[in-house]
């Protein structure tokens, strides 16, 4: 039923519909509303027999999720920013053990300097930790992707991270369709664990593997991850059949037909980008967009197919590989037709709004060939000129102001 609710509440309802058996989390902005809402449901008994476990840190949240999942329970947690980094070691353990945990990351910048606002630095830091990463373009896709995430995770025995922009989605109140229990039950069967820790039949998982087999363990994990690229479109189609609402699976094209300029992006910037593209199309600029939903594993073939007709590609990154550029841009470069000019745009770091006006300006410049290989949306040069003036000599470079 379509309701006007906060994104976090909608995600919590979607997770509840998936009948998790263990939810544990440690609060961190902007994720907190989601687990608060789930905690309230567990307390009122509507999620029984689900257990909500209060833990003392994010490291414990992932460790308890690992224990719960290894014990045969459908496990869910959520975090953001420093919280995700703090659990990093356990994040790798979850994927290494092949445990189908689903985790929401309410995307937020990473310090220092401390910043509570939205960008994708946190998810990007752990993009290659062996988890599938799905990026929600809006709150409807956040709801839909969470339900699909459990299915994908359990069919592959791979953990899945659902990345939802902190604040811009988690705190936005919108008309969101949360499916009914019957549809979700018909789409998502009860969790049947591949392996299960059982005191009556003790086994060891995650034991030491030496040089003679470690490569092979990793090879199998790689092969399993790659299967997500075949499976996700199937799951998306089955989800659409169950709830009567479509989803593209790997990538989502927008007005790509005949587009000379294609903009690749992910997350909540997509909606604003689509509005900007409509305006630019009205002005005769031939531009379209491609939203990357499955980011890990990267759907290189789907992106390559979508970029086949592009004469120029712009990639918007909401995170920075310092000293390098954009993460998504590096991935898209692998998929873009050889020789096609590609411009990476760093945008919306630490909560700076990515406005329709700025996107329009940037894409107009791109369409006229004026954008560099790496561009910065709305960079305020007055704030950095003095610092930059001190850089070239080398001797007077000092660390302080970067952290200030």
């Amino acid at each position: 039923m379509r309701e006007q609710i906060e994104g976090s509440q909608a995600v919590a309802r979607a997770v509840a519909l998936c009948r998790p058996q263990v939810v544990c989390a440690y609060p961190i902005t902007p994720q907190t509303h989601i687990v608060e809402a789930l905690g309230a449901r567990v307390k009122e008994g509507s999620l029984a027999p689900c257990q909500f476990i209060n833990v003392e840190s994010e490291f414990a949240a992932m460790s308890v999720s690992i224990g719960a999942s290894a014990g045969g329970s459908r496990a869910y947690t959520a975090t953001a920013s420093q919280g995700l980094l703090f659990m990093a070691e356990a994040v790798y353990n979850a994927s290494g053990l092949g445990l189908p945990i689903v985790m929401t990351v309410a995307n937020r910048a990473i310090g220092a300097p401390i910043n509570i606002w939205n960008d994708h630095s946190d998810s990007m830091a752990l993009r290659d930790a062996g988890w599938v990463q799905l990026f929600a373009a809006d709150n409807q896709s956040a709801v839909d992707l969470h339900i699909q995430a459990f299915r994908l995770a359990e069919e592959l025995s791979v953990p899945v991270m659902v990345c939802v922009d902190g604040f811009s989605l988690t705190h936005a109140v919108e008309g969101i369709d949360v499916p009914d229990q019957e549809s979700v039950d018909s789409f998502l069967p009860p969790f049947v664990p591949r392996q299960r820790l059982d005191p009556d039949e003790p086994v060891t998982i995650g034991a030491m593997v030496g040089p003679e087999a470690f490569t092979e363990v990793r090879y199998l994990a790689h092969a399993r991850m790659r299967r997500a690229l075949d499976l996700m479109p199937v799951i998306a189609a089955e989800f659409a059949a169950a709830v009567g609402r479509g989803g593209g699976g790997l990538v989502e094209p927008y007005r790509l037909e005949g587009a000379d300029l294609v903009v690749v992006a992910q997350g909540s910037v997509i909606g604003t980008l689509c509005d900007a593209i409509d305006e630019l199309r009205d002005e005769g600029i031939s531009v379209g967009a491609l939203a990357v939903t499955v980011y890990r594993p990267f759907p290189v073939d789907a992106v390559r197919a979508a970029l086949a007709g592009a004469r120029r590609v712009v990639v918007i990154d909401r995170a920075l590989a310092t000293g390098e550029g954009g993460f998504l841009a590096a991935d898209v470069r692998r998929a873009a037709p050889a020789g096609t000019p590609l411009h990476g745009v760093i945008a919306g770091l630490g909560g700076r709004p990515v406005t329709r006006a700025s996107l329009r300006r940037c894409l107009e410049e791109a369409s006229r060939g004026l954008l560099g290989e790496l561009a910065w949306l709305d960079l305020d040069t007055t704030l950095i000129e003095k610092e930059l003036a001190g850089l070239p000599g080398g001797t007077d470079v000092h660390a302080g102001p970067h952290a200030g």
Partner: protein
Amino acid sequence: MFQVRIHGRGGQGVVTAAETLSVAAFLDGRHAQAFPSFGSERMGAPVVAFCRIDDRPIRSHDPIAEPDALIILDPTLVHQVNLFSGLQPDGYIVVNTERTFEDLGIGGVAARMRRERLLTLPATEVAQRVIGRPVPNTVLLGALAELTGIVPLGAVVAAVHRRFPGALGDANEAAATEAAGYARAAREALTDA
């Protein structure tokens, strides 16, 4: 699309106002989106929230730069924050104050706007008297509904009841309805004059 920007201070119900307005529009069969200006909000600090209303699905998630209407919950912000930035020339302004635009020192802004689209009303006083709490947000939504016609008062009232069940909802309904009457009277006074 109709875009509303709401300015106030932490504790005045700025975020709730945007949310309630979006629910009112939703109940009226429109598409709506509300979101706060994600700061480290705390009691007394300037807070901004946004609400978009449209007949088609709303895709953009950027802050509202060019509002069609402003609701100002705290008139002391008038000279502290750039409240009127991007306001459309044919836009609406509702200010929670007993004073006039001229008295607040924003007569210049008012002079550039259409007089019948501007309203001041003592919303905190109404809230204190009718609801028993000095929280002006639902009062101002009642006034906005009447002033702009963007949502019917009935939808605001229904949204208010969703947010505040029971007696508190009734009190908020009474306060919002009184504010709508205030806005109507102000318009009629202008027409007569």
